[in-house]
């Protein structure tokens, strides 16, 4: 896949950097303030998961232009420990970090499309899309 830009997640501040870049890109695409907040929040959750569970990884952005639709695709990738039970992490309130357990199910609700691929010992890739309405 050909991404316009990626943010490497290595330190905590990169979470803020990723969501600020994501917000800038979504503003340029034409998203309103509410959707900008949704997209930035989703990026923040995805980037924090990388930082917390994999240590390092990256978040990439792509502007989507279909026939008459515009949108943004965000891909969060890491080569961390992977997720053993995906259905468990998609449950509201499930957490291993002492957080609110709102992360992934929250991201799914904030975005229009949500795909997750994870292999134990190899890493995790989460792709989300938000369409401009």
């Amino acid at each position, binding site marked *: 896949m050909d991404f316009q830009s990626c943010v490497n997640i290595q330190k*905590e501040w990169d979470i803020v950097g990723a969501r600020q870049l994501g917000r800038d890109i979504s503003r340029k695409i034409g998203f309103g303030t509410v959707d900008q907040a*949704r997209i930035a*929040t989703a990026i923040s*959750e995805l980037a*924090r998961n990388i930082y917390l569970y994999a240590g390092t990884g990256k978040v990439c952005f792509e502007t989507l232009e279909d026939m008459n639709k515009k949108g943004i695709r965000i891909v969060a990738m890491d080569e961390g420990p992977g997720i053993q039970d995906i259905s468990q992490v998609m449950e509201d309130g499930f957490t291993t970090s002492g*957080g609110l357990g*709102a992360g992934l199910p*929250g991201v799914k*609700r*904030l975005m229009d499309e949500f795909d997750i691929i994870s292999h134990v010992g190899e890493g995790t890739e989460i792709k989300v899309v938000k369409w401009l309405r």
Partner: protein
Amino acid sequence: MRIPILKLHNYLLISIQIDLDDQTAIQFQEDLLKKIHESGATGVVIDLTSVDIIDSFIAKVLGDVVTMSDLMGAKVVLTGIQPAVAMTLIDLGIHMQDVPTALDLEQGLIKLRQELEE
């Protein structure tokens, strides 16, 4: 980065005007509790008018600081939560039901006065 905490009579006033990273949020939690302890403040207003994103981590830190302050004997009111932030929090599944809130700083101070029956 440190968030300034202002004292006004028995109250502490905080206006968060930066994009909060995790470390700054945790530092703020500590600073506020310390300031409550030192100043003997009975009420705190945290104004979030300039905050345009609250993710689950920041929400947890804010919710925790309200509970922690309460344990110490100080009431906290969160004010100025933006419409986009409120909508995003509900999408995330975060309801912050036990957290006192008000529309703006002025309403926040009125609410504190009522809660503290001053």
